[in-house]
């Protein structure tokens, strides 16, 4: 029964200091909430020192309560989560009420649904171009990166020199610079690439450099005796790589590789400097057309919706790669 339950608290939590017990925490919370209800100043940026101090005091006392809860080893995890979440909620509530922001203007400027009228088809086109560029660049850079990674893992000094230079160079080169160079400077050398292929080339050059290192690290993580066992069975170097090394290296390669692919998709946005009509370019056109930045804000949500599943998948792969540890 509840009463026996309450009587047991004395023994169950008797070893806790007074401020960690529920007998203190609950009344303190109630007192705090009541006090806040009575004494909080009206909405708007606080004018008087006393008002500001009240707000600060309310927040600090709630923070203290939350800290007591989350630093206690014996409180249930669910309670700790609820406490931290409510602290964050309180922060935003106080900010909403007392920052003095004119929220209706914010809404009109940045979350104006009227400014999105007719923009959705542009988003759709943009997303299609973004994905096109991403897929082409991803596949090509994986191919090139794999070849470079395998070549580098051979540790041939001559290859090492060239590939090492390639990797260092394109890892250090800012993407935006290489896109501008490929699109605006190469035509002077007689190489005319469309916006799509300029963007793709730059993305492939940079990402294959990063991926080569990922592949090399994966390949070199396979113990030498695995390769010796394959050799001793009469497998040639290509078959050893394909049948023994790469399948095992995949577990190590996949998490950082998918990380790299996530940033590749994000990096397609840089292609707006060379007028490739991808998502960000479309959003910026829409901003000019509607004279309102809302379309830009919403393009952020579209990027998030596209990439969040990918980052989730990355995390899943990372977890899985730790699972079947060898031997």
């Amino acid at each position, binding site marked *: 029964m509840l009463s026996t339950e309450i009587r047991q608290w004395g023994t169950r939590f008797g070893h806790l200091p007074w401020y960690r017990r529920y007998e203190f925490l609950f009344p303190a919370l109630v007192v705090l909430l009541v006090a806040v209800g009575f004494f909080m100043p009206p909405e708007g940026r606080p004018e008087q020192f006393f008002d500001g101090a009240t707000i600060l005091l309310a927040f600090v006392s709630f923070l203290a309560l939350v800290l007591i809860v989350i630093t206690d080893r014996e409180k249930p995890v669910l309670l700790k989560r609820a406490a931290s979440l409510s602290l964050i909620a309180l922060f935003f509530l106080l900010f909403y009420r007392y920052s003095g922001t004119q929220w209706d203007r914010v809404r009109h400027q940045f979350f104006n649904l009227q400014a999105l009228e007719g923009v959705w088809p542009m988003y759709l086109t943009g997303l299609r171009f973004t994905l096109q560029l991403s897929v082409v660049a991803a596949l090509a850079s994986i191919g090139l990166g794999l070849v470079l990674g395998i070549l580098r893992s051979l540790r041939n000094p001559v290859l090492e020199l060239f590939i090492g230079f390639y990797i260092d160079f394109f890892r250090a080169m800012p993407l935006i610079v290489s896109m501008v160079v490929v699109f605006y400077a190469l035509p002077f050398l007689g190489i005319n690439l469309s916006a799509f292929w300029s963007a793709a080339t730059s993305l492939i050059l940079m990402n294959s450099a990063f991926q080569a290192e990922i592949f090399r690290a994966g390949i070199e993580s396979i113990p030498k005796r695995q390769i010796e066992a394959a050799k001793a*069975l*009469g497998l040639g170097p290509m078959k050893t790589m394909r049948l023994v090394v790469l399948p095992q290296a995949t577990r190590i390669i996949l998490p950082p590789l998918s990380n790299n692919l996530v940033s590749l998709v994000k990096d397609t946005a840089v292609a707006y400097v060379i007028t490739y009509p991808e998502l960000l370019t479309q959003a910026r056109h829409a901003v000019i057309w509607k004279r309102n930045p809302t379309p830009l804000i919403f393009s952020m949500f579209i990027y998030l919706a596209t990439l969040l599943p990918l980052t989730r998948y990355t995390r899943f792969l990372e977890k899985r790669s730790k699972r079947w540890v060898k031997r």
Partner: protein
Amino acid sequence: MGKAVETDKQPIIQVTDLHKYFSTLHVLKGITTEVYRGEVVSIMGPSGSGKSTFLRCLNRLEEPTSGSIKIDGEEIVDHKVDINMIRRDIGMVFQDYNLFPHLSVIQNVTLAPVHVRGTKYKDAEEIGMKLLERVGVGEKAKEFPSNLSGGQQQRVAIARSLAMHPKIMFFDEPTSALDPEMIREVLDVMRDLAESGMTMVVVSHELGFIREASSRIFVLENGSIIEEGDPDAIFNNAQQERTKKFLSMII
């Protein structure tokens, strides 16, 4: 004691003046010997004497610095030789099994026949299953190596080598990484194999096995064969002072 060798007197391995340097370290100092078809040769010697290096030179897992090795009459210390053609006829079992962890047991066994010999998977699987039965791990065929004990893994490794129908089997300290109770099951398989007439070269510290199963013993010290002979001659009647000293240390 010792295994009777039905020798047609044609050496299957013929080694002449084999030298191996690791940069400046002279590991093998001119080894000349031969192994005949059907023999079981055990190599003994103190650690660092070059036993493993010698064995690994024989299928060029280590590149010999100089000298000649003929396998079945064919010179293999030559960069023009396709070493993979030679290696497919030589099985090798390693100290730490080296099974492929991403493949199941039966896939481990069928990998080389399918991809090196071009055997159809169905046939390779059938032969593989028979071999796994023979080494006593038939019921583990679908498992992954990580679920097997060390002794089971080593027996799978033997089956994996046998699947290529090798002419010769090399064993590089096959029981050194095993717990004592698992050594027996592996040695039993090896003994079986020896009796079936397989040519074997074994680097081992298992005196019981060496004494019973081998037809000849090489004693290596400091990069050269200081004595060779049948088990009786080596264990009971060693000529060299150094052999006696080595044996007294390990018995």
